[in-house]
């Protein structure tokens, strides 16, 4: 007989966060989780049963102060910077574009070549996007349960399947292009090549993003750009060939880094057997979300580039002025999307604080306070987006764009669409953390459908800059539907939060 307080109720010795029990029921749960039954309570602690033991321990436990993990002072800024770190490779590419007039892709090439490269790039995002999200979901899950060996095995498996899928879709595209005379030879092969190599690069950067090592992606990108510059400036290779070689080098370097990091994290552990069926079952909504997200982001470009032009020599025409407006708006998107990560983390930090401060029966108060927190955060995000959007609009007209014409309506549409997309991503991050990916998939699927339908009609009845209307409508629907979904879940947040934690 111990005759004292069970050790499972004491605060952990390693200083990890701990909170005193809320009531006797909470103490019973903690005791049962540690294997203390009525028999054990009688035998080891001299109590009549587990409930008596809990009630006797409650008074002493309530007096122990809770231990919380406090965020550091620069927590918000750090999280914000982590949120925008995915864009560092993009920033490097933009710098190279300004400096050398070309980058890992793009540059001063013919209209046909630009169209082919653009098409390959978009296709790589859409096809690889699904795999990257599914892989990240499974990898983060196994990392979360400290099973790095299985996380590595899962990443390798998804990478293999993604590479096969990229190769297959590339071949299918070439066959389609030849059959329907979509892109002339050799532009169809250029598009397929960009699709394959960029798709592999996104997979590698996806793994590094999952490991929170985005600076290594930037290093690989810089190495790729360096190779392109060396090969092209020295006259060894034409620009497109140099870009292919640079991309191949960047991809190889990214995978080498991934290999080393995953191996280092794994140590000497052996992965557990995870069947493909389990992978598919758990990650199919994430896969769909990844593909649909990029479809939503890029479908307006595709619609704009494929507006029928009987005077043109090709089915795909790269629209430089349309792209310029979208690229300027992209800067705003990167600045805005960084806020989603700290806001999401702060929301859930607040949730645990509120949860600790309330008793188990006060779930109505819990829901009400979290609803207020959601809407307050949403308001702050909206305010931030409004400010950045207005600043961006003012700055855009002062940019030295040379001969490039800036399309005002396209710029407005892209800025508004991006802001709506960021708001939808804020909702999406909450829904994913509440384990509600299907709600996200439903919302984004409707958004993509609306984007395609509106953009198609607008471009075919109007002209190519009207494609941005589809983007605005698509992101608006995505934002509205995701807000509706999260509002619905917030009504019973206690249930969704605990079921997600389970």
């Amino acid at each position, binding site marked *: 007989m111990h005759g004292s307080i069970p050790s499972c109720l004491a605060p952990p010795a390693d200083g990890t966060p701990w909170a005193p029990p809320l009531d006797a029921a909470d103490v019973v749960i903690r005791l049962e989780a540690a294997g203390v039954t009525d028999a054990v309570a009688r035998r080891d602690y001299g109590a009549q049963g587990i409930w008596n033991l809990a009630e006797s321990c409650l008074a002493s436990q309530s007096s122990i102060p809770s231990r919380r993990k406090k965020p550091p002072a620069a927590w918000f800024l750090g999280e914000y910077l982590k949120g925008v770190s995915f864009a560092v490779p993009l920033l490097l590419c933009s710098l190279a574009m300004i400096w050398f007039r070309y980058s890992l892709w793009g540059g001063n090439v013919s209209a046909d070549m630009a169209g082919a490269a653009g098409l390959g790039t978009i296709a790589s995002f859409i096809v690889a996007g699904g795999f990257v999200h599914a892989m990240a979901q499974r990898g983060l899950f196994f990392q979360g349960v400290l099973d790095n060996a299985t996380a590595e095995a899962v990443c390798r498996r998804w990478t293999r399947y993604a590479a096969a899928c990229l190769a297959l879709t590339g071949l299918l595209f070439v066959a389609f292009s030849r059959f329907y*005379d979509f892109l*002339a030879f050799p532009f169809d092969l250029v598009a397929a090549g960009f699709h394959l190599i960029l798709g592999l690069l996104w997979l590698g950067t996806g793994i590094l993003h999952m490991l929170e090592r985005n600076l290594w992606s930037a290093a690989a990108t810089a190495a790729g750009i360096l190779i392109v510059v060396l090969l092209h400036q020295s006259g060894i290779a034409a620009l497109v060939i140099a870009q292919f070689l640079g991309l191949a080098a960047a991809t190889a370097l990214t995978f080498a880094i991934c290999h080393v990091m995953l191996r280092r994290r794994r140590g000497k552990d052996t992965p557990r057997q995870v069947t*493909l*069926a389990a992978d598919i*079952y758990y990650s199919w909504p994430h896969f769909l979300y990844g593909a649909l997200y990029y479809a939503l982001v890029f479908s307006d470009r595709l619609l704009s580039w494929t507006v029928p032009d009987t*005077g043109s*020599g090709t089915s795909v025409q790269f629209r430089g002025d349309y792209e310029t407006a979208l690229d300027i708006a992209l800067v705003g998107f990167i600045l805005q999307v960084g806020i989603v990560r700290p806001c999401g983390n702060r929301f859930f930090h607040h949730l645990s604080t509120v949860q600790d401060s309330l008793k188990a029966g006060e779930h109505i108060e819990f829901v009400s306070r979290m609803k207020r927190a959601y809407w307050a955060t949403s308001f702050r995000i909206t305010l931030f987006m409004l400010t950045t959007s207005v600043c961006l609009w003012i700055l855009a007209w002062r940019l030295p764009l040379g001969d490039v014409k800036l399309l005002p309506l396209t710029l407005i549409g892209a800025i508004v669409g991006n802001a709506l997309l960021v708001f939808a991503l804020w909702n999406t991050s909450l829904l994913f953390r509440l384990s509600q990916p299907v709600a996200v998939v439903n919302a984004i699927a409707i958004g993509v459908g609306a984007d395609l339908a509106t953009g*198609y*009609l607008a471009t075919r*009845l109007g002209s190519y800059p009207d494609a941005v209307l589809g983007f605005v409508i698509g992101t608006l629907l995505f934002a509205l539907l995701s807000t509706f979904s999260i509002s619905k879940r917030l009504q019973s947040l206690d249930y969704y939060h605990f079921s997600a934690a389970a």
Partner: protein
Amino acid sequence: MLWDSIDFLRVWLSMLVLFLAAPLCLAQGPHSGDPLLRAGLGFVRACLFAEVVGLLLGYFGLCLPGSMTSAYLLSAVLSMWWSGRLYRLSSWWRASSSQLLRSCEDPVTGREDLTACAANLLESRWRLLSEARPAAWIPIVTASAASLIVFTVALSHTRFLTAQTYTRALSLQKLILGGDSPPDGSVAFLAPVAMLAGLSGATVIRFSNPILCVILGIAAFLACRRLTGSRAAAWIASGLTPLVAVVQQGELQAAGVSSILWLLAIAVWPISRRDAVLAGAGALLIQFIPDFGTLAIVGVPYGLTVLERCSRWAPATVRRAAACIAGLLMLGMMQVTAHRLPADGPFQYEAAARAADRIRREFRTNTWLIISPGQEVALIYGRGWHLELSNFVNSHTIEQVSLPGFRFQYPVVDTFIFVEKEPLVTDQLSLGLQYLRQPFDPVVASYHLRLNRASLHFRAARLISAYRQTHSVETFYEDPRFAVFRIRTQSE
């Protein structure tokens, strides 16, 4: 020849998918046990749908692959939702995906399931084929033999034989490029075929003719069988009707196409009046006012019905033998008719049409220009540029083009000039202005008056000859009567 055969295959497969496979998959409502009649019903619905969608989208200039695909997908989903099969499909999808997951878990079981599924599918298809009565194949064989003859004509004739066919080819091409010209009802139903096959309007018109002949033969068989109840008479109708449709002009026109639907309306009337009315509506959309050709084609089954009633006194064997002989005679007549078609004309040399087709295939879109009489426009519209020969000869002089510094100011890489060394002479070309059709068109007059045509080609030949003395001109094609000259006007 190889590319032509491949194009024919593409058209044939596209029509098979759109007018047979898709409607049969989505079919609902009254089902007849006769597979031919079921296929006929499917054709009526698919044809009417394609016609209405083609005309509607074409009216707004939206008859493009994206909107056409959306229309088909939307109608498929709506049709499945209406018949309650959408729910069954989602249940099937859930069951299949869980089956797939189980197969992923255990590859051995997965392989076994897959083998069992394939075996079931093969067995059901074989049962369907083995249950079909041999008699059902007779009209298909007859109509196919007739269409084989028309196919050989289509394969050997890149040019068209009537002015209406050139107009139809151009209308179809404009329609699928989202043009704003008023849609032509006689070609709107072929828009999805052209999109699925990925071919130009001219190629689709050229190769859909034999296939539509087969369908016309089958429709006549069904209509005649319905009217007479005699397979022998129906068999004769299946051969005679395509013959009547093509014998006058060598090509199936709007009258022939609308007759398919009229005949199917007669055939399906007893089993589905709604479909019969729909078929009639479709026929009116294709040809709003039926002409003598339509009456002649649709009249064939009625004529045979009268003959069949009159010959009921004869024994069945005699009637069957007579039907066989009549069928063979008709095929023979078609063969003779096909061989009697002129090698060139009536509007252009066959070599000119082949040269235009070759240029369209071999050169990149819109990087070239053809200077020729107007017929080539229908063959190349949307793929390259065209300039009337009359404009070309009127805007240049011999002195001008013979200067070494002279350059043709066309913003293309290659310019092809079609010259008739021996001007085409056919019955369609008139000797004087009084023979031209009203209203008077000066461009048409330039080519349709024999003397004018000869003068234009002579002047073009002189211009090229003068230009050749100081510039490089490549002979792209040449035979004793016709030549195509290639001039590189710009570097790529």
